[in-house]
């Protein structure tokens, strides 16, 4: 038994990171739905067992189990009621605006998550991990903030210029990591993580000096407020906080879809993602694709930066990223790195963010939602566990997913898998050839 287990671990180690990534990204919709449901079940358990009334009823569980179940169901009811009221529609709102505001708040929070999620997703499709969305958002924000108050341009033009600056800032910062990978082979995970800290300190410096904070008397890092001309206008009037940044996000979803599914550069991205060696053989300049894909990734992340900087009239501080850079990774994973998936995943996570105050109001700690988010990713990224728990059929013969069997069948499965991957890349290569 232990022998079999050891062998299994060994074969799992031999699976390359690219295989695991592709396996996660090719998760079936059923698997993702199950992961989300399961995460909510765990979340509800936390809701129940952090509820004061439930805890009071526990010592007396055998004496009066009814009270426990009543308390548990009322806490679950409160959770769902708060989620609905906080993220979708609040029937108690005094005005129609107040009733619909939760939905627009969900969209507002979802916007930057979707955009940054697309950026990270793009690199996943190329077989790379962009962990640097945080640094890219900071750099994009710094560029956008600079253009937003240093220049004084007419209405309309100024906003466009500021947005373009934001996109360029994020893209440059991202492309540096791609260039380092292409030139030196430096792993983009390490490089992008390190560059997050470099960006944080550079931007903090700029916000302490005249570059971003001219005429300031305080040493607290903060950028000058944008000119009114450079602010993204409100989308639905003063009753709602949602702004035109969300339209930019929707446009970028469409662009991402076209880029990855229809354009020839997107085809090259995917080919490198499947198998860089085969792509190289087929005549694709893989190094160039590394740099280009990181640059494109940065453009999408830049949309998130612009949303944060020019949209939500917040103080522009080194904390402007607000955790979006890392949440984007989870959004991209959950969304399977395709346009619609990332859009839906971003909307779900945005709704969870928007519902925080309503949750607190209902006596539920909003931290439970962070737990649910973490669990969703855990379950999506741990397909062997899900498959084993629910005995789902294998769509792809992957060793890690196979139910524990004998050593012999592992070898067979591995051979099958290799054959499968090979034929897939061959097919891609032929397609590339025929296109030319």
């Amino acid at each position, binding site marked *: 038994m232990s022998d079999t287990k050891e062998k299994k671990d060994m074969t799992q180690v031999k699976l*390359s990171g690219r295989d695991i990534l592709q396996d996660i990204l090719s998760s079936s919709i059923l698997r993702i739905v199950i992961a989300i449901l399961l995460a909510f079940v765990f979340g509800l358990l936390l809701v129940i067992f952090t509820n004061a009334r439930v805890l009071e009823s526990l010592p007396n569980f055998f004496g009066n189990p009814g009270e426990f179940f009543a308390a548990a169901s009322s806490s679950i009811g409160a959770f769902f009621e708060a989620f609905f009221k906080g993220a979708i529609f609040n029937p108690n709102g005094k005005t129609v605006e107040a009733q619909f505001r939760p939905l627009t708040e969900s969209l507002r929070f979802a916007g930057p998550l979707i955009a940054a999620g697309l950026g990270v997703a793009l690199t996943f499709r190329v077989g790379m991990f962009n962990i640097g969305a945080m640094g890219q958002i900071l750099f994009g924000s710094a560029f956008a903030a600079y253009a937003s108050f240093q220049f004084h341009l007419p209405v309309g033009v100024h906003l466009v210029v500021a947005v373009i600056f934001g996109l360029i800032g994020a893209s440059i910062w991202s492309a540096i990591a791609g260039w380092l990978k292409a030139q030196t082979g430096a792993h983009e995970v390490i490089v992008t993580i390190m560059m997050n800290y470099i960006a944080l300190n550079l931007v903090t410096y700029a916000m302490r000096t005249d570059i971003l904070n001219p005429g300031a008397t305080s*040493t607290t890092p903060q950028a000058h407020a944008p000119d009114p001309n450079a602010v993204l206008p409100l989308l639905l009037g003063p009753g709602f906080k949602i702004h035109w940044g969300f339209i930019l996000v929707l446009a970028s979803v469409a662009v991402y879809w076209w880029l990855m599914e229809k354009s020839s550069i997107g085809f090259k991205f995917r080919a490198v993602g499947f198998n860089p060696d085969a792509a190289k053989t087929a005549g694709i300049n893989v190094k160039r694709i590394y740099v280009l894909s990181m640059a494109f990734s940065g453009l999408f992340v830049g949309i998130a930066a612009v949303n944060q900087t020019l949209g939500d009239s917040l*103080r522009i501080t080194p904390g402007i990223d607000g955790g979006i850079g890392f949440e984007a990774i989870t959004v991209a994973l959950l969304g399977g790195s395709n346009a619609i998936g990332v859009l839906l995943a971003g909307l779900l996570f945005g709704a969870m963010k928007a519902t925080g105050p309503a949750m607190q109001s209902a006596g539920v700690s909003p*931290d439970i939602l962070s737990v649910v988010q973490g669990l969703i990713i855990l379950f999506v990224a741990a397909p062997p566990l899900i498959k084993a728990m629910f005995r789902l059929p294998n769509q792809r013969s992957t060793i890690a997913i196979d139910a524990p069997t004998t050593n012999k069948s592992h070898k067979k499965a591995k051979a099958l898998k290799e054959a499968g991957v090979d034929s897939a890349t061959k097919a891609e290569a032929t397609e590339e050839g025929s296109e030319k």
Partner: protein
Amino acid sequence: MNKITKASISGLAIISSAALLAGCAGGTTEPTDPVETSFLACGVSDEGSWSDRSFNQAAYEGLEKAKAEIAGVDIKGFESHGPSDFGPNLDQAVADGCDVIFAVGFNFSDGSLKTAVEANAASHFVWIDGWNEGWDNLKPISYKMAESSYLSGYLAAAYSKTGVVATYGGMDIPAVTDFMLGFENGAHQYGIDSGKSITVLPWQFVGDFGNTQVAKSISDGFIADNADVIFPVAGSLFTATYESIKESGKDVVFMGVDKDVALTSPEYADLTLTSVEKRMTQAVFDVVKDLSSGGAFTTTDYVGTLANDGTGLSDFYDFDGKVDSAIKAKLEELKSAIIAGTIDPTKDPR
């Protein structure tokens, strides 16, 4: 590639599960009270949690005290994890029909409170460390922290063996620098009175109230420059200073702020000379008590001073024997002088 990719995936899982555990531990779920409530008092926190052992907690305990001691009062707390939560939390508090909403902290000056106050003329707000910009539905609560900090600076200089004391702040905002200014003036005054050479190291700022790494490196720098009394005006970041002192192995102490740190965080009491208390708990309680018993809402400032005991030094506890009785007497004398107005603790020291 292989290992790193795996590591990054499991890293994500670990981060999420760490967030999970932290979330459970810090949960501040309020039981929904079925008892009839006639007054609902709400609070929106500054960045951080209600259990930060410092600023936010001091305010929230005022609400909890009101709930426990006044019949018919219920409370709701909204934690902000960052400035982007201020606006939505205030909106939610208004939507919940709170009878009074406490905005805890100077950082609400980012515009979120202004928007909420102006959009909801019928709601009553109280802004701690804030001011009134001509609104008739907001009451500011502020503190003259320089007064008690002056005493702490005097004490620090008298206690110091090296003659070097230091202070750092969370952010360079008036609510923080008020402490630091009083501290520096008090320390210099001891130098003048005793004829000894007293150095106050240049002020440093962390940039926020959560970055323990920066707080620790600032503290390390202070200790390397021979400071043996450190005054961190940065919420819960005193824990980083504590760690820094322990690692240095030197005979250095620090002073707490906002709450009586030696009492509320006894695990840090062995290095806590005293604390400069900002007694928000009482102020919040008093406001809720007054309003819930039918008192009319006024926009009059509440200003905590040494005179009304809104601020003051904590007990010395373990350090009581190490502070000279002549110094204790002097501190009382200074306190009376500040109350009488003969000493200005906020004068520019340079």
